[in-house]
């Protein structure tokens, strides 16, 4: 198990991969972003995106899935984040694209709100199968503290 104290600045996590199918894109869009270029591949060809692409919020959600799976894989006691300082959408994610992410730890600080947790600053980049950057963001992630957890 890795607690907040164990996560060094400069550490880089390489996530696994997720492939996004046309059905995944349509399912998410039907619930949350029902615009034609997400719902209908034929219409999407003529849209500003030039193809059937995922909602930008689905890309964020997929980034989260990659992150959570990676923290679980590596035994990091993370519980997510309460803030995103900034995020950019660089290019669309099209049906059948495969995404992966790189998470770089850039800082380490106490959390004012939670005594059991500390914060790590992260720079995250999500790229597609060609290595092209899809989104990038900076966020801080809450990670359980070892010494507090041990006292309980």
């Amino acid at each position, binding site marked *: 198990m890795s607690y907040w104290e164990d996560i060094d600045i400069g550490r880089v996590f390489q996530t696994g991969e997720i492939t996004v199918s046309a059905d995944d894109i349509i399912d*998410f869009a039907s*619930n*949350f*972003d*029902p*615009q*034609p270029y997400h719902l*209908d591949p*034929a*219409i999407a060809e*003529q*849209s*500003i*995106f030039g193809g059937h692409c995922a*909602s*930008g*919020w*689905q890309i*964020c*959600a*997929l980034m*989260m*899935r990659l992150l*959570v*799976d990676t923290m679980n894989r590596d035994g990091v006691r993370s*519980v*997510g*984040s*309460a*803030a*995103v*300082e*900034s*995020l*950019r*959408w660089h290019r669309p994610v099209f049906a059948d694209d495969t995404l992966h992410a790189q998470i770089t730890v850039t800082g380490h600080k106490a959390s004012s709100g*939670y005594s059991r*947790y500390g914060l790590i600053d992260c720079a995250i980049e999500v790229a597609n199968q060609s290595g092209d950057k899809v989104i990038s963001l900076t966020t801080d992630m*809450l990670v359980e503290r070892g010494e507090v957890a041990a006292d309980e």
Partner: protein
Amino acid sequence: MSEPEQFFRSRWFEDIPVGEFHVFGNHTFGEKEIIDFGRAYAPYPMHTDFDAARDSLHQGLVASGWHVCAVWMRLMVTYMERYATGVRDGRRNGAGIGFRNMKWLKPVRPGHNLTYTYEIIEKPDKVIRGKWGIIRSRNEAYNQNGELVFTFEIDILAERRPDS
């Protein structure tokens, strides 16, 4: 093919005034949808399991922050379709290009009702790829007790009037 009138519709960049404020929708978060979203995208116990969530950060089941974002999008799309006036070619709104200062300030639990608002706060003086302007808005969501639970600022492209 019925594509033109299905496109999302909006106004020219020049016609969107700074200071414009909208209460654009509200949503009650159900337990099942919180768990469905959590299982798919943020599989922490606090988002996926009513009982296990009691021992987690917020002492109970809460919606993923990205779920709160996704509902923002859903309400925004619905609102914009209603608000649009007669634009048929779908070329006046573009993609979101990014956001900043996103904060999830309070937990969103099953049964909570969030009211979403946005205010146009800035139109940066930039032309993107010859035809797009940037509309910056501050977006907020308040719960049923009037508490601010979610806030961020997003940049979205809007097409500039061709003769401007």
